[in-house]
């Protein structure tokens, strides 16, 4: 197991390196400099700014400095917010995304999982078909359609909930964004759990369990659960990573001060360090999630454990 982990980490590092290099190359390949939009500056001030951001050094040196900083976890200074580092900006925005993302995925797992299991235990029934039609709708209607609509209905017309903004610790501000984000995942999870549970229940070893006279709850919970969980776990890995990018839209719509918003604002204002820094962060998170998924897999299926 330890060797497996080591092997995965070893592949993770070059991947991260590639992403970081891509980000750096793009940063420096962009036409114009980061400060072009400002007024024309007096040469001395121009020079001092460039020196401050190390833009006067040869490119390869900047690259080494960039990598060294990355290794320390330092994503560099923001170009927009002159006295703040990207790390600080991220530290401010991350809790918002974490709160919304976690709430969303919990909701999606609970509701979607229950719906999927419900449908799986009565396949072909009207309840099953109704649930799956709803799920089809859920995966087809994009977040940036549901989010504005939710806002329109609940905040603007009904005035039940606030129409955006963020107040730390306030569940009312958490509700609509989490719900909007959760809906497609809820639908995906329902479909996956249903298919996985049906597949699991068709396995020959379920017939053995039946022949032993075991009750339904034991068969579901002990025998069918692992086989059902595996496709779900497979899905959750990339899904959790996608939750990050999906929240870009939600933050935009609800005006939340999260990382996605930071990213888009940075993109529109050409704050390159913020943009590439967050990209590297996303990349690292995706790698971590994928690794966690693989570990879960090995834990769930002893046959994979042996091979590993």
């Amino acid at each position, binding site marked *: 197991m330890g060797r497996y982990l080591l092997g995965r980490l070893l592949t993770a590092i070059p991947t991260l390196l590639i992403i970081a290099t891509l980000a750096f190359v793009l940063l420096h390949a962009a036409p114009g400099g980061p400060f072009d939009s400002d007024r024309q500056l007096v040469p001395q001030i121009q020079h001092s700014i460039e020196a401050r951001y190390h833009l006067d050094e040869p490119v390869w040196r900047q690259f080494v400095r960039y990598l060294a900083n990355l290794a320390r976890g330092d994503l560099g200074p923001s170009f927009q917010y002159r006295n703040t580092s990207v790390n600080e900006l991220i530290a401010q925005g991350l809790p918002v995304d974490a709160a919304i993302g976690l709430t969303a995925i919990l909701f999606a797992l609970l509701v979607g999982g229950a719906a999927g299991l419900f449908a799986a235990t009565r396949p072909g029934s009207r309840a099953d078909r109704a649930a799956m039609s709803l799920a089809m709708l859920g995966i087809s209607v994009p977040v940036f359609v549901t989010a504005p609509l939710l806002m329109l209905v609940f905040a603007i017309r009904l005035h039940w909930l606030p129409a955006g903004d963020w107040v730390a610790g306030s569940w009312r501000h958490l509700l609509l964004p989490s719900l909007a984000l959760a809906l497609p995942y809820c639908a995906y999870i329902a479909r996956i759990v249903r298919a996985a549970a049906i597949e699991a229940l068709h396995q020959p070893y379920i017939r053995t*369990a039946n*022949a*032993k*006279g075991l009750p339904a709850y*034991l068969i579901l919970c002990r025998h069918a659960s*692992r086989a059902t969980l595996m496709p779900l776990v497979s899905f959750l890995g990339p899904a959790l990573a996608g939750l990050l990018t999906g929240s870009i839209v939600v933050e935009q719509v609800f005006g939340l001060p999260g990382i996605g918003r930071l990213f888009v604002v940075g993109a529109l204002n050409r704050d390159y360090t913020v943009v590439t820094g967050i990209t590297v962060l996303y990349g690292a998170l995706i790698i971590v999630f994928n690794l966690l998924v693989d570990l879960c897999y090995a834990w769930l299926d*002893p*046959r994979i454990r*042996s091979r590993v």
Partner: protein
Amino acid sequence: MSASPPMLLQARSLTVGYQSAGRELLALDAVDLDLAEHECLGVVGESGSGKSQLLLALLGLSGGAARIAGSIRYRGEELVGAGTERLAALRGRRIAMVFQHALSALNPHLNLGTQLMEGARYHLHLGRRAARARASELLATVQISDVARRLRQYPHELSGGMRQRVLIAMALMCDPEVLLLDEPTTALDVTVQAQVLQLLRTLRERTGVASIFVTHDLAALAPMADRIAVMYAGRIVEQAPVRDLYAMPGHPYTAGLLRSLPRLDTPIPERLPAIPGQPPDLAALPTGCAFAPRCPLVFEPCAERPALRERGTAHQAACHLDGAAARKIREAWP
């Protein structure tokens, strides 16, 4: 049917039908069966003869799509139509089944200990330690060594023969009265087959459990079974005590099966005699005797379906041939 030992299992006119492409196929067609205590009944037939379906039907595991008719009585209690709870209480506890492919019959995600113990823990309310002790005892009985380690292992870590023995141990956990064995040795190597068969005989002597042993290999049943039922196209075509069946088969199909067994005590023929024709297509059975298309002794009455007739003590065959049948069959198929 009168019997001095009490009937453990008794099936009458047991019929199992499935819908396929708009018609109903009968996997089992009016099967009558008796199993006494401590008895070993062998059931032999080709693929598609319904022998596996028979075992599943006895446990009520034919599946939701099956139409079940007829009666199955366990110690007089009617099982057809009994609620799931009643059936579940019997399964594993009084009537236990050993499936054919041990690798797929065992859950790959759970260790052997869990799978062995769960039946006893649920049915007999044994605590974990008691259940483990029983599992260890049974593993030793089926001649598996290093028991403590095995209990922690997973199915894929064992060899095929060992897995089959684990299945047998698992079936015996709650000390059932009836053991249903669905081709327990078919998927194994020949040498391992012999070991498992020997094991089953020993177990039977020690525990006195009654069993129904389904196989396509007539030779395997010789040292095992008290009686043998021969199935063809979902019907029982012959039933007899084992010696009588081998000595004087009353049905041409049985004779054909016997004839095709390779033997060491007679000169080796150039070609193994086989039954001509193809196994029956359940969707296209002839009206009348199902074996007629392949039978060397087919004659006029065969257009009508034969009922089981007496051929000797406790020996029935579903064939229109009269009392001299055995002789005629032997002449047709030496």
